[in-house]
């Protein structure tokens, strides 16, 4: 049990801890040798004081200037990382796979229909028929035979073809986007490892399917070449 001297000593040490530069520091040190209790109390006080002294000398440093400045440039309430994560999640949640599939099928059907319409016999003059008519001398008083070059140059047909091509390209672009989104949902597999078409159980491996789809899309929806590009 600590005697009154020790209690008093403990109180003085306690006050000294709250006083950053205790006036009686030297006395306290001297009194520590008076007995085992004082010695223990002093040891604890000294342990803390020396630990704080050393820790203050070795305060950790960090340069936060650029990081803070970069963070401040981002509008309030939006962190770049959070925004990305949210937008990706939102995209996946907002467009379920079923919806994307439907969009692909609808777009493909529309492309097919437009292609058929654009090149149907009613709309496209048959160059062979025209030349046959001309050779046979048919059509005196009828409409003059049309030269294939002139047929293409017909403004109505030209407009139709241009519209069809434009619609085709637009739809193809949309279809490709929709397909790419579906393909993005197929899990990625390390490209360094050769991917088999089927796994051990005989099921198709998704990445092979995706590669195939990508290649087919590239081929199918390649933008049409104009004459200048072709030559």
């Amino acid at each position: 049990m600590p005697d009154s001297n020790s209690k008093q000593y403990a109180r003085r040490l306690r006050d000294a801890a709250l006083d950053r530069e205790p006036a009686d520091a030297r006395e306290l040190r001297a009194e520590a040798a008076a007995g085992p209790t004082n010695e223990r109390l002093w040891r604890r006080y000294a342990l803390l004081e020396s630990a704080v002294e050393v820790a203050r000398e070795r305060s950790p440093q960090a340069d936060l200037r650029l990081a803070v400045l970069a963070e401040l440039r981002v509008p309030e309430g939006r962190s770049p990382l959070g925004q990305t994560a949210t937008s990706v999640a939102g995209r996946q949640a907002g467009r379920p796979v079923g919806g994307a599939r439907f969009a692909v099928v609808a777009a493909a059907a529309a492309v097919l229909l437009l292609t058929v319409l654009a090149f149907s016999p009613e709309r496209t003059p048959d160059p062979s028929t025209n030349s046959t008519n001309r050779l046979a001398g048919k059509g005196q008083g009828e409409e003059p035979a049309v030269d294939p070059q002139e047929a293409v140059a017909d403004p109505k047909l030209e407009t139709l073809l241009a519209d069809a091509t434009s619609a085709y390209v637009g739809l193809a672009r949309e279809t490709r986007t929709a397909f790419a989104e579906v393909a993005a949902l197929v899990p990625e597999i390390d490209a360094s490892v050769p991917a088999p078409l089927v796994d051990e159980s005989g099921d198709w491996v998704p990445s092979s399917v995706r590669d195939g789809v990508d290649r087919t899309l590239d081929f199918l929806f390649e933008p049409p070449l104009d004459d200048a590009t072709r030559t």
Partner: protein
Amino acid sequence: MGTEDETEFVSVEEDVQLARRCRDGDESALLHFVERFQGIVFGLCYRMLGHRQDAEDTAQEVFVRALRSLHTWDGERPLKPWLLAIAANRCRTALGKRAKRPTPTEFVVPPAVEESRGNRDDLAEELQLALDELREDYRLCFELFHFQDCGCEEIGQMLGCPPGTVKTWLHRARRELARFLERRGVVPHARFQLEAVRASSS
């Protein structure tokens, strides 16, 4: 004392000007603001959280919040305690979030060493370990008093408690820290050792 008051006055004037330039979006002022206070803010975050990466993230958050809410700062008072109060709150929030996550291995206290430890690096390390074991209120009090040189009254204002409570928490923090260090066989720096005291008194 007059010099101290003058220094304090100049410091508050500087704070006001710096805050005004920061509010105007002056980039060099923003950089100066962070440079001036990053030592104390990061130090507080590091000792409160005991993890460098967490401390950097939290300190960064403190600065962003402070700079975005500079209009709420009372220009009559120095910036430092205002900033420290924000830092203290952010650290509490970070600790609260951490408490809900499983403890990563880097927060686990390493086993105590057998031999006595008097190395200065060890001493700082051991104090950090001891701080990590301390109750949050005690740790914050200890940090603000011993590392940020805040007075008991100032700490009380920051933490929203009377100065008497701060003194009690500080005393308990010191007692628990000393016990922890003793248990781990840490010895005081040579200057404080009793042998040195005895030698000097004789």
